[in-house]
């Protein structure tokens, strides 16, 4: 299987080999065909490592007899190139694989869907289409591992600069922090809901996170500067943002707050005079409705201070959430001992693509931490929810959840309209 273990290769090996192969094919187009199986579109429970392996094995005999070439991509898609002569055999094999997944919506709903189970190509006539398709797939796969390799190459650095702006420098940081004390940030505060889901996927809010939109901040204060380019300078900036957030939260007329809320703070802020005055000014019962989110890097920068601060605010009634854990970080850190009320696990497709072993591992971690204490965040697709539920997660946050909330609101609105119309029809 294409499990890439050689990080120095920028491209995952199977993807790279596939691209090389296609380039070589340019000179030998005639009499060759390609079938592309969209296994990446299968539901997660159908896309486990052994499923994909089973599907790939069906092509092995052709590969051995040198009648075809097989590529299994990281996202589980299969590309099989073959000689025209064996076309009927290949069609049979694909039928067999399709049968394996006959209970999956990819097959069940194929007629209504844009994504088909398989696409068939003639290399001779479709060469450019295939080349584009593969290049797109590879770019997408590179984007996923973007954070791993954009550091060292100038091209990506340039690209990041064009897209996100000049990196933040200490001078600029000083100016921004100065400007921040004078800028009204209340219109940059965003809210995202942390929800449980009913069986019919109707989101039910548990609490909402308030945060200052960094994109808006950048647009307003410093268009053209990438505030997040340097982790440490950004971390320093968040301390200033903390103070602004606290002062906004103290003035109830600046932000309308309903229900339980969470917001990010630094450990240092919790120990500051500003937090003390914030705490002095809010009523005891509001503390119970506030969840304070802390970053793991901040926690481990000074663990002693974290333990002290956590004890301090929990004793006052606030709850604590550890934000931004990747599943790898979740495995490494002793969450129990850190004593937080919630942890946020960051969704990444890698978790799903990682195979059965990783799924079991994640499921165990969730069970150990407590299903009602883990929030899957940055949920941007239905896939993420599917995966989350399959490993026992009950709380979700992210763009896709916001989308579900909006959808649910629309549904309710329509229902209300419908009822009103029915009533007016019934009226004599």
């Amino acid at each position, binding site marked *: 299987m294409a499990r890439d*273990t*050689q*990080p*120095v290769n920028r491209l995952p090996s199977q993807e790279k080999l596939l691209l090389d192969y296609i380039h070589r094919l340019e000179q030998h187009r005639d009499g060759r065909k390609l079938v592309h199986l969209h296994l990446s579109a299968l539901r997660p429970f159908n896309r486990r490592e052994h499923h994909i392996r089973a599907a790939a094995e069906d092509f092995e005999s052709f590969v051995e007899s040198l009648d075809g070439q097989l590529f299994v991509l990281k996202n589980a898609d299969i590309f099989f190139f073959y000689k025209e002569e064996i076309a009927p055999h290949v069609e049979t094999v694909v039928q067999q694989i399709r049968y394996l997944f006959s209970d999956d919506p990819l097959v069940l709903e194929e007629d209504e869907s844009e994504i088909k189970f398989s696409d068939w190509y003639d290399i001779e006539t479709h060469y450019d289409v295939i080349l584009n398709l593969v290049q797109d797939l590879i770019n997408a796969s590179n984007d996923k591992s973007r*954070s*791993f*390799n954009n*550091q*060292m190459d*100038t091209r990506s650095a340039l690209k990041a600069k064009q897209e996100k702006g000049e990196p933040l*420098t*200490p*001078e600029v*940081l*000083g100016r921004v*922090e100065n400007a921040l004390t004078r800028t009204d940030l209340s219109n940059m505060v965003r809210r995202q809901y942390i929800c449980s889901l009913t069986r019919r996927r109707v989101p039910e809010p548990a609490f909402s996170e308030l945060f200052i939109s960094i994109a808006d901040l950048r647009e307003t204060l410093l268009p053209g500067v990438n505030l997040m380019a*340097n*982790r*440490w*300078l950004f*971390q*320093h900036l968040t*301390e200033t943002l903390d103070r602004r957030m606290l002062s906004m939260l103290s003035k109830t007329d600046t932000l309308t707050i309903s229900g339980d809320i969470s917001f990010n703070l630094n450990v240092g802020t919790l*120990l*500051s*005079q500003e937090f*003390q005055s914030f705490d002095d000014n809010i009523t005891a019962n509001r503390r119970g409705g506030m969840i304070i989110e802390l970053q*793991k*890097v901040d926690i*481990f*920068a*000074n*663990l*002693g*201070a974290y*333990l*002290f601060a956590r*004890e*301090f605010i929990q*004793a006052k009634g606030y709850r604590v959430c550890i934000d931004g854990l*990747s599943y*790898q*970080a979740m*495995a*490494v*850190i*002793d969450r129990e*001992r*850190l004593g937080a009320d919630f942890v946020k696990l960051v969704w990444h497709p890698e978790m799903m693509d990682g195979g059965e072993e990783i799924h079991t591992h994640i499921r165990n971690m969730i069970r150990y931490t407590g299903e009602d204490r883990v929030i899957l965040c940055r949920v941007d697709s239905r896939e993420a929810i599917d995966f989350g539920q399959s490993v026992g997660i009950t709380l979700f946050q992210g763009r896709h959840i916001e989308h579900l909330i909006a959808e649910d609101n629309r549904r309710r609105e329509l229902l209300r309209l419908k009822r009103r119309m029915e009533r007016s029809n019934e009226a004599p």
Partner: protein
Amino acid sequence: MADAANFTTVPNLSGTSEETLLVGHLRRIQDHPVGQFSIHVHLSELRPDNSQQNFIRIAARAFEPLLANFDATLYVLSNHDLVLLCRDVPVDDVDQAVYKVRALFSEDPLTFGDEGSFEDRFTTWYDLTQKADFRAFMAEAIKLEEEANKRQKLDSEDSAPAASYSMAGKPLDPRNLAAINQRMMEVNISDLLRQQMAITIREDGKGSALFREHYVSMQDLQRRLAPNVNLFGNSWLFQYLTETIDRRMLTVVAHFDFESMPDSISLNLNISTVLSREFQTFHRSIGHNARKIVVELQLIDVFADLGMYAFARDQLRENGYRVLIDGLNPISFQFFNPGLLDADLIKLGWSKEFLGEVPKSRLDDMRVQVNLAGKNKMVLSRVDSEGAILWGLQLGIHRFQGHYADIIVEKMIAKGII
């Protein structure tokens, strides 16, 4: 009146110290101590990183309900101890407040003794109606007052107060960082490089060199670049500065004569540096000597992005380097599974609290962690005594670094067994 809220203003500005006020208070009640008792909370004995001013300020506020509702006075002493003087206050209410403070420091060895037990070093209670107790406490208060006066005198003579990590000056801020960073790129740092050996002590008592750590002396760097700025004063901005230091150090180390160097060396680098173009250039110039280099990565940097760490680690290994995780202390060491970081070496900073009256369960925890990390990967650093080495050996650690290891190195060299 000693009000906790006033504590943020620097004590002693008014001229009368909290200690003097306390002694005065005791004198006033000396003849009629009916219903009076006092509790001395020994926060001065906390580990240094817990004994920070803002921690003490927060701890002192736990007594506010008592001060508001009862006849009680709190003194926040200049050594960070708290003294509560009470008249007819229900002990249960005092307990509650003391318990809150105790909980705040639950990871500090000071609170490890069972509350109220003989080993409890956290608080001392005095029943001031008892003559013996009164005398003892009065003597204690007078001693504290004398110490405070001495400290104050020292402070005013030596205008440099003990700042964080004992570096004087105002903390780094974005503005002075910009200037320092700029100068950092221009100034010569090759003469600021220091080294310290890490050694392996084998079963037969003989030793061998593990590596020589090369590092930039921050004190000297400060003197050269910014005598008035405490480089450690802000941890995020300091971290930023180290990225520049890394680059400068790489250019110096690239010119080392690796061929004639008998031992391996270690270098402290940021993960972002390892993934930078400068490091690629460095690697090209040292070539196969990578196997003589151990790269030390800081735990905070590792935790900032574990994915990035894993990538950097694999890349370093593939190119022949060894990877060491630095920056673990006795607390952080117990909060994650160090083995999962899959590094070649893990450095744990020794601290005296390992030796103190640490309950057995904590020592067992430590043993479990050492085993998880892999005994053969552990380097005990900052060892300053024979006790430190013995402690390490007892847990199966046999790699050491620190002042005391330096002494051993010298002896071994003299005897020719290294």
